[in-house]
């Protein structure tokens, strides 16, 4: 079985709201696959369906070779999951949380001890193993959860917003752990995030999700290529020497040339290596470069390109929507 996950026409409705809208995709064994999108895009709902916690309203999904509604028990046996919110028993120690998990998954006593040792080492928590989880920091709790998700050697590991609410340094550490276990344990990893850098740095392929649908699905670099490469803005003085823009337009490695006030906006690949040449060409053709601005396209720009909105803006309005929904919910009670 080469595909770790196959999804066909998956749909989930909550009353009127269509949270997941006719999704179809597949993920290869050993792939690190990311869902990127604003809150409320349907990422968590999709993961919850794949992890058998929610029943789909329509469509089919196979995880590790088993269909999620027909063989939920088999699916559960082969997946690990780290939820968006912490799901540890804070009144138990780190070790006890792992033991609980290992026993629930039916590991023998020997396998249990060996495996717990291994995963604790992987996430650097050996020394804190006998501390109550309520005394752990946010980053330690996350690491413990990732370790726990791995104990029973799942074929697929789901990470739902694994670095949400963590500081930048801890986030980088978590990224390292995720990469390491993808390589060392060979486990297929599905993660959701609304952090661009996370999807960009970690994932082999990224599905950009909005309102229950995929707006794009490809490798991060190819997604960014859709935008036509890096954007260089040259502020020129005196404006405007027509020879400069004509010269630039004649070059094959410059894809587009646009004028904006007293600047030229150019797109090209590997722009950082072209800037000296651009400055030189401008001066030779009678203009002086006053400032240079280089913008490398991010997945944020890709999201903007496809939806006409920014993920952050979307987040604010999602929060408003959510508040309205909560108010509605409480009135109904």
């Amino acid at each position, binding site marked *: 079985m080469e595909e770790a996950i196959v999804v066909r026409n998956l749909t989930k409705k909550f009353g009127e709201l269509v949270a997941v809208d006719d999704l179809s995709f597949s993920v290869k064994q050993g792939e690190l696959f990311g869902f990127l999108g604003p809150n409320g895009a349907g990422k968590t709902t999709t993961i919850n369906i794949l992890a058998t*916690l*929610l029943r789909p309203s329509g469509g089919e999904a196979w995880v590790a070779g088993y269909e999620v509604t027909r063989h939920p028990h088999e699916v*559960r046996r082969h997946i690990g*999951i780290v939820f968006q919110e912490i*799901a*540890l*028993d804070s009144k138990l120690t780190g070790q006890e949380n792992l033991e609980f998990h290992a026993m*629930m998954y039916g590991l023998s006593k020997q396998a249990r001890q060996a495996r717990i040792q291994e995963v604790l080492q992987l996430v650097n928590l050996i020394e804190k193993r006998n501390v109550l989880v309520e005394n752990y920091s946010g980053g330690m709790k996350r690491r413990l959860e990732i370790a726990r998700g791995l104990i029973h050697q799942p074929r697929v590991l789901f990470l739902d917003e694994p670095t949400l609410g963590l500081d930048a340094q801890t986030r980088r550490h978590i990224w390292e752990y995720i990469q390491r276990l993808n390589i060392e344990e060979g486990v297929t990893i599905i993660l959701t995030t609304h952090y661009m850098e996370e999807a960009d740095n970690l994932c082999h392929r990224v599905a950009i999700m909005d309102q229950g649908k995929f707006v794009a699905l490809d490798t991060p670099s190819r997604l960014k290529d859709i935008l036509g490469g890096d954007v260089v803005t040259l502020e020129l003085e005196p404006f405007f020497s027509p020879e400069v823009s004509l010269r630039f337009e004649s070059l094959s490695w410059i894809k587009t040339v646009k004028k904006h006030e007293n600047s030229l906006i150019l797109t090209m690949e590997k722009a950082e290596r072209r800037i000296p040449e651009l400055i030189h060409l401008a001066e030779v053709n009678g203009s002086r470069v006053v400032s240079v601005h280089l913008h490398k396209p991010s997945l944020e720009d890709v999201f903007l390109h496809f939806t006409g909105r920014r993920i952050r803006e979307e987040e604010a309005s999602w929060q408003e929507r959510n508040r309205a929904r909560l108010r509605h919910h409480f009135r109904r009670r």
Partner: protein
Amino acid sequence: MNFIAIYVLWLREMKRFWRAKSRIVGALAMPLFFLAFLGLGFNRMGIPGLSQGVNYITFLVPGILGMSLLFSSTFGGLSVLWDKEFGFLKEIMVAPVSRIAIVLGRITGGVTTALIQAVMILGVALLMGFRPSSWLTLGLAFFFMILISATFLGLGLIFASRMKDMQGFSIVMNFVIFPIFFLSGALYPVENFPVWLRLLAYLDPLTYGIDGLRALLINNSSFSWPVNLGVILVSATVMVILGAYLFEKSEAA
């Protein structure tokens, strides 16, 4: 049946119970205050309906045991909501373990903690001068306590499965648990109720639980213990099955 899963769920309850010392003290305080103050306050008064030679403290002890079992067991069932709130329920629900094993794990854990508290109350009662009419029937009395506890763990699970969060907790407390407690005749003989209220009391499973404990511990009861045993056995079975069924139906995410 996955016995390891039941065992590990039970073990978790034990560890949590053992570590929450303040919670144990809190859970014991109310029944012990009831026992001490009501017992000492009313002991010299003639309570109508008590047979000769049974003083009020003696009458009260089985009632307070029932009270403690009622409260700790219902809370035990409702504690699923805490797991939901703190996210741990998802960790349990995503494990390759049958829902029945999960329910049984919680019930065995809940019964054990409720029973430990009942034993502690019984210990205090013995210190206060309470003596069971026969030590031989004590074992059967414990069996009664298990069934009482299972009944109300089932009830707690039923409510936990229908509720989204802890917000409805005080409603359940005031409109379900307290009426069950007052109707059960824990504090007075149900025979003193007017007829319509007595009919309600006879619909309350705790009435039979406590009456059974009285039959076995102080030899003073409305019904014989086999009758009480029959009723409480049926109620425990029905409640556990219903609780398990509704728990199975509820979605974790």
